[in-house]
């Protein structure tokens, strides 16, 4: 009877395990394996080259430049995007009019298609017929007019800000949920004890929001480092390599150069770096909480 029950359980689990194995585990193992080979994605034979792909990655300046670009976009997301998300969540958590409407509006950008957002912002930032430049001229700042996405001085920042605009809604939602879990009694008790708004914020809100902030920070880093669609829609990685990011480099190795092995090695390196960042962050946050 026990064996029958066990078998039955396995039968229920089997389809999910099979699907998971086919679409996640086996491809993952193949990627690990392919990283050690030179392969063009067409020939049935692959050439084993050991760790050569990984050695090449270490000296690949463009790869590390793309990492720097992704890190810059992530920095903007961690600071500007999350600060904005927190402030708006904090505002919506208070008793203000039409707060449900604001919640809806703030969560609209994340649900929009990244390609659509990219193309709309490309149109707004266009150097020739873009809305931003037209507004700048109307407002009396013609000296600020430029081609925001083709100028190497502004391209990456423009992409980072659009990415932040697109992504702050997620942070807003998580921060808002976190703020709503803080018991109101704590604020009332603090008020009775004579604490002002700043003191309540500093001594109650911030400490209790640390776990939520850690979650938002980890999600922001992982999400932003892998940003891809928005960039390809807005600049395609250009001008030159100024908005290139690791995922675009992986795609270029695979599709542009037909170097599947190298692309897999890049993917593994990228994944390991993200895991290390997340782990370090997790350890720091654990320390901060204790």
């Amino acid at each position, binding site marked *: 009877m026990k064996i*029958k029950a066990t078998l*039955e359980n396995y*039968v*229920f689990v*089997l*389809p999910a395990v*099979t*699907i998971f194995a*086919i679409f996640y585990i086996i491809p993952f193992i193949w990627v690990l394996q392919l990283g050690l080979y030179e392969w*063009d*994605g*067409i*020939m*049935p034979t692959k050439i084993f080259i050991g760790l050569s792909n990984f050695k090449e990655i270490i000296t690949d300046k463009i790869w590390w430049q793309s990492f720097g670009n992704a890190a810059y976009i992530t920095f903007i997301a961690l600071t500007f995007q999350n600060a904005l998300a927190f402030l708006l969540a904090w505002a919506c958590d208070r008793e203000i009019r039409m707060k449900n409407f604001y919640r809806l509006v703030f969560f609209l950008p994340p649900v929009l298609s990244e390609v659509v957002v990219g193309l709309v912002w490309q149109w707004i930032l*266009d*150097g*020739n017929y873009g809305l931003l430049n037209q507004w700048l001229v109307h407002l009396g700042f013609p000296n600020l007019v430029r*081609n925001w*996405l*083709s*100028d*190497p001085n502004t*391209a990456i920042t423009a992409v980072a800000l659009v990415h932040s605009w697109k992504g702050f809604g997620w942070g807003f939602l998580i921060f808002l949920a976190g703020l709503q879990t803080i018991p109101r009694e704590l604020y009332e008790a603090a008020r009775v004890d004579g604490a002002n708004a700043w003191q309540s914020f500093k001594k109650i809100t911030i400490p209790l929001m640390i776990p939520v902030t850690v979650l938002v920070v980890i999600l922001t880093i992982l999400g932003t480092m892998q940003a891809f669609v928005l960039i390809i829609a807005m*600049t*395609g990685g*250009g*001008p*030159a*390599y100024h908005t290139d990011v690791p995922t675009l480099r992986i795609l*270029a190795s695979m*599709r*542009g*150069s*037909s*170097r599947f092995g190298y692309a897999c090695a890049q993917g593994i390196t990228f994944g390991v770096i993200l895991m290390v960042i997340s782990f370090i962050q997790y350890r720091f946050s654990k320390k901060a909480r204790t």
Partner: protein
Amino acid sequence: MSVRRLICSLGFLVFSGLFLSNILGCSGQKGSSKPTITVWHWMTDREPAFKELAGWYEAKYGVKVNFDLYAPSDAYLQKVRAAAQGANLPDIFGILGEKRDFASFIKAGYILDLTPYMQENSNAWKDSFFSKALAVNEFNLGDSYGVKPGIYGAPIDIMTIQMVYNKSLFKQLGLNPNRPPQTFAEFLEIGKKIKEAKLQGLVSGWGEIWMIDCLANNYAFNIMGKDKVIATIKGEVPYTDPDWIKVLSLFKEMQESGILAYGLVTMVNKTAEQLFANERAVFAFNGSWCVNVYKGMNPRLDYAAFLPPKVSDKYPMAIWGGAGSSFMVSARSKNKEEAVKFLRWPTERDQQAYLAQATNNLPANKESLDQIASVLQSFAKAMDSATHPRIWGVSEFSPVIEALDKGIQSIIIGEKTPKQVAEQVQRIKERELAKKR
């Protein structure tokens, strides 16, 4: 209770099995006395015309032909590679990418050698094509690809990539609308007028790097000749050679003269086509497929094509041209003979004329040329000046092409000098050569 649970388990298993078989593409094939030919392609604009041809073919020969469209081209490229790995290639398909990828498909045994069919009836099929269109699908003795010499594909249409100019805007600038610039100096001179008139100059999809590569190679042929370009690809001439620096300097000169449109370095070809079709740009660097695109965007657009204005008289100006799209027959197809028979049919004179009229692309069959629109004929005339990396017998390394193209973008945005770019490209070339050795 346990019976119900068992039925539930079995039902769950059956459902999962069906789901898996569907997603893995293991659905059964229906038996039929006549074979069905399956063709995979990526050409959204040609889909209705292909379907029409398939209908005519079925009515005439009783063989059903399914044209399956997989777009965009990037997705198609991956689909074909994945199908090759899974031994699921259709009877007929096209290959996108560089010639070395094409060679890999042949070496892996995925593509049928069409040479015997081309040579039937005293080369009747072979001779019906423009030689340069066929050359794209040909491998010769001494090529660097290691493929058995032969013809491995049939061109459906051809293309040339050259300059086009807006005649109305030419008039507006006080220029002769029937005389495009003949020399590079004249071209730059027009740039100054464009700047004064606050119009956009040259637009092109230089955000998608291969089009920069195309123009750079055009000028490389004009400045140093074919042999030196090929020698560079073989690694015998460095990119730091003065002639290559001269090629790179042309982009700096174009930028300084004002002939290049604002934001050109991140411009995708679709945007460039919109700007030119909406009469906001005086010049465009585009392929002959633009005739169809411009017609759709602005049927009244008055424009003509011309060769990129030459820099030197030492060597002729060369443009990229040849097969726009070609089809190959799967060597593992069960319907090889029927597939070859079908592939021959749309390349015949009448079907080619229909395709040219329906899709505004240049026919690959040279006998169908007299039936095409005049703008298209101006593109066709340039076939004499056409060349293509796929017929050079040797391919440049992809990282070198990328470095050259991104380097040109850096020159245009004023970040690097032509010499710096040449040195950077040469460093990458040497690295790739060392790896190959």
